[in-house]
């Protein structure tokens, strides 16, 4: 391993601009003539729009234009799409209602955009938006998914009777019923997975620029996948053809899934720019973000886990109702199905599994992928019920898990996934050792002497990253392929540009991707630039989500590097009159094996571009591209152990120890991987302890729409984390890497809830385990 190669803890190249205030985020962009947009949003969760009167607002200072849904429809702007088709178990396609970028007849959640004001300044746009008079006829509201399915519940979309979007299943129901009947023990639970608001620190923003002379559009946007944004805006929203639409996602301040989707605002900014003739910028405030960013989770599940007389798991039955909010967001249908129920086997040999999932419309913000997306929901229910079963069976939770671990690979689960590699015992052992698991009783007793209730809990998670291959996801309903592209350009002076379809919004790609080039050619990472986030520079890409940038994005770079290496060796062999099979590349030189002959990298590159002396028939230049489509998902896994102390007087929980042992396969930059795990765990602890999204059930008002009401994890809510890794190499991609972006958020909530319920001796507790809930559980 070189100092900047694969496996090195290299400090990040991109940090310089961020620590000096020179990062360039969408809201930092200023163009000549730019004006500001403010959206008029529905204050009601469900209402018919009777009329919109913008006449007074239009006369206010600075106002350039006020646009509504009728004009949007007149201009042929399409509906917002869901990009993953799911069929119900009766074979019928999902019941999708229309989502207009600006609501025309009906609003279906608080925050639904109705009109947009464009004005000289942000403040003027906001003032005028206040003066737009929308006459609403209020309709009955439903926010709870279970209630929404009942007869007589308010109906959101005519297409979805009883608000049911689909009723989908996976696995073998008959086998599960049979196993439940003959089981020696069955553990049953009702599990709630709380709705979360992703809350990247940079609120969403968009800048739409229409150039009339060129009939060309540019969109700066806070996107995790600018190419997908361009594709969707072009192919479905009819904003502009792809060749006349440039999408740029510059520095993006976190995403966590919420910036995958193409929202109404960026479409409207582009369209409004053409309509008004000025560049139009919109920047969300935080309350708007709470109202209109896609939320995550929100499942209600009945689960049963069956055991034989030797405590071997025999069957798992899962019945889930997932709240998808008022409209189907881009990947909303895939999250509670293929990203969720396919992981229900966890790390265990469970011969029979059946999952049933019903998804439901409610008068709440749309729900889509949030860090982990389906996998946290699967892990939470499985690891809560395994821990609960261990308590019921009176066996040590770690041993019940160990006994049921999958030990042979590849392992075909009953729910589609085929696990390629893993060593679950290794991560369990590593975590137990790091946590001093066996020493817990003494710590519990010591805490008791201080009047504190100490508990311990674990979770053994598995997840799936790098959703692929494209053909397989296509057969499951995905509207896109899930490959990645890369292009490696070697300049005439030997410096390198890597163009990637992955997008970095905190993941450190500018460093880790450059480490790949250093590892291959020995060039300092300073001489390698990573280009991403601009559809005019990078031809096509699928973006960053689902921890795919390593396993898929980097694999594409490796393929392109392979081609560059092959051509570079041919050129060097020609220059040194050697056989290309004898050429080695290291330390920035191309050498002839076993001799002292060498050509510096830059000289080979120069030769490629001067083209004075190239092998016969070779094209000049040195630039290669590749598309990489994986052969399988990757399967990161690990074990998390959490210890808490609960104050019985107040119900307040303190996380006193958090241990993580993860298997991410090969690691490119341990420092960056550790950072990903830290952040994921913090979000998982946030879900378990602090973050609860609350809608008023009568009015559909979002009660937690600011940082005064929605409890974000802060530094003093969290401990320092004790994390380590084990390694089984992923056989499915050339680097052997699995992905690390979501594991922390997937594995941590059940570990924490298992610890709290252990501490208080009451298993009936839902997330977030606020002091109020924990105190109440202690009384009962």
């Amino acid at each position, binding site marked *: 391993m070189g100092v900047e190669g694969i496996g090195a803890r290299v400090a990040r190249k991109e940090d310089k601009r961020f620590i000096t205030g020179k990062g360039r985020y969408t*809201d930092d962009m200023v163009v000549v003539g730019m004006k500001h947009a403010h959206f008029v949003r529905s204050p009601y969760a469900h209402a018919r729009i009777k009329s919109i009167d913008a006449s007074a607002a239009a006369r206010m200072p600075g106002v350039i234009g006020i646009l509504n849904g009728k004009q949007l429809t007149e201009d042929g702007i399409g509906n917002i799409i869901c990009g993953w088709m799911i069929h119900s178990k009766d074979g019928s396609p999902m019941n999708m209602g229309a989502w207009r970028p600006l609501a025309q007849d009906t609003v279906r959640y608080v925050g639904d955009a109705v009109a947009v004001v464009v004005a000289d300044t942000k*403040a003027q746009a906001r003032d005028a938006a206040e003066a737009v008079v929308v006459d609403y006829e209020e309709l009955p509201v439903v926010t709870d998914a279970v209630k929404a399915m009942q007869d007589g519940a308010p109906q959101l979309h005519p297409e979805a009777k009883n608000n049911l979007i689909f009723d989908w299943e996976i696995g073998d129901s008959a086998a599960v019923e049979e196993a439940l009947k003959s089981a020696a023990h069955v553990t049953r639970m009702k599990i709630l997975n709380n709705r979360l608001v992703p809350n990247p620190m940079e609120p969403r923003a968009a800048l739409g620029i229409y150039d009339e002379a060129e009939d060309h559009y540019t969109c700066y946007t806070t996107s995790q996948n600018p190419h997908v944004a361009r594709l969707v805006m072009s192919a479905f929203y009819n904003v502009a053809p792809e060749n006349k639409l440039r999408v740029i996602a510059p520095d993006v301040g*976190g995403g966590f899934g919420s910036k995958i989707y193409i929202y109404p605002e960026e479409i409207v900014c582009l369209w409004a720019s053409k309509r008004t003739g000025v560049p139009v910028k919109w920047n969300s*405030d*935080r309350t708007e973000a709470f109202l209109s960013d896609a939320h995550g989770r929100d499942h209600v599940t009945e689960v049963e886990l069956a055991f034989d007389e030797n405590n071997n798991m025999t069957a798992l039955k899962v019945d889930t109702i997932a709240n998808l909010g008022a409209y189907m967001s881009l990947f909303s249908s895939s999250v509670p199905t293929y990203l969720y129920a396919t992981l229900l086997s966890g790390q265990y040999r469970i011969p029979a599994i059946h999952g049933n999932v019903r998804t439901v419309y409610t008068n709440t913000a749309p729900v889509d992928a949030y860090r982990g997306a389906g996998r946290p929901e699967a892990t939470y229910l499985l690891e809560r019920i395994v821990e609960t079963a261990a308590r019921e069976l009176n066996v040590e939770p770690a041993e019940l898990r160990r006994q049921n671990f999958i030990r042979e690979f590849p392992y075909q689960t009953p729910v589609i996934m085929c696990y390629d590699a893993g060593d679950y015992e290794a991560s369990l052992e590593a975590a137990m050792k790091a946590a001093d698991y066996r020493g817990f009783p003494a710590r519990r007793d010591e805490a008791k002497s201080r009047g504190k209730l100490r508990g311990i809990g674990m979770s053994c998670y598995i997840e799936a990253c790098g959703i692929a291959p494209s053909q397989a996801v296509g057969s499951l309903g995905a509207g896109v392929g899930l490959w990645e592209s890369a292009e490696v350009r070697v300049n005439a002076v030997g410096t390198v540009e890597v163009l990637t379809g992955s997008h970095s919004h905190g993941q450190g790609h500018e460093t880790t991707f450059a480490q790949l080039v250093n590892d291959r050619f020995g060039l300092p990472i300073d001489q390698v630039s990573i280009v991403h986030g601009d559809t005019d520079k990078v031809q096509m890409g699928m973006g960053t989500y689902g921890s795919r940038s390593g396993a898929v994005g980097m694999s594409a770079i490796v393929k392109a590097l392979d081609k560059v290496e092959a051509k570079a060796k041919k050129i060097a062999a020609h220059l040194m009159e050697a056989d290309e099979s004898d050429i080695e590349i290291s330390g920035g030189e191309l050498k002839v094996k076993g001799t002292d002959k060498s050509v510096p990298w830059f000289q080979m590159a120069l030769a490629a571009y001067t083209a004075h002396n190239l092998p016969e028939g070779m094209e000049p230049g040195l630039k290669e591209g590749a598309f990489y489509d994986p052969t399988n998902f990757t399967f990161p896994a690990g074990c998390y152990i959490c210890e808490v102390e609960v104050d019985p007087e107040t119900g307040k929980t303190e996380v006193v120890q958090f241990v993580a042992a993860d298997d991410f396969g090969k690691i490119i930059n341990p420092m960056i991987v550790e950072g990903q795990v*830290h*952040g994921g765990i*913090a979000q998982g602890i946030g879900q378990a302890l602090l973050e609860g999204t609350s809608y008023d059930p009568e009015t559909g008002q979002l009660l937690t729409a600011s940082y005064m009401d929605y409890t974000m994890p802060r*530094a*003093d809510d969290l401990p320092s984390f004790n994390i380590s890794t084990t390694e089984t190499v992923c056989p499915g991609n050339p680097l052997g890497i699995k992905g690390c972006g979501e594991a922390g958020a997937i594995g941590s909530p059940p570990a924490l809830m298992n610890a709290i319920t252990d501490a208080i001796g009451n298993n009936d507790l839902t997330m977030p385990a606020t002091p109020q809930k924990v105190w109440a559980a202690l009384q009962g």
Partner: protein
Amino acid sequence: MAEITMTVNGRTVSGTCEDRTLLVQFIRENQGLTGTHVGCDTSQCGACVVHVDGKAVKSCTMLAAQANGSEVTTIEGLASGGELHPVQAAFREHHGLQCGFCTPGMIMTAVDMIRRHDGKLDEHTVRSELDGNICRCTGYHNIVKAILAAAEEMGSGSKVAAE
């Protein structure tokens, strides 16, 4: 409209803005210093922390007019002569940032925290003092580490200077 003159990063600047203009808007929109960020609308997140007359202030809690005549330092003014401030360097060395959005506010808060505690910080104090700054990426682990490392370096630096 308010006529405002203040010193920003050592330079005297003047501008005219609406009375309701917040200091953060004046810095970002009038002065074009976009390193100071806006992450919320309730003065909770701390992405907008700058120094006003040497003290850390959330620049969304103050009208630009209130800062008239003040000396303001933003993240852009922290490094001197091309050399990073020790807190900036520590954030990079200890990977105390990911997306970078909360980072300017974190760094400005940390500089003030180290100054007020005379470099004598422990983990508990740092975590407690950071309660006005939200980060969604790092889980704070490496931010705390970076601040402690910077405090130690600055503490030992001042000792050397005193000797």
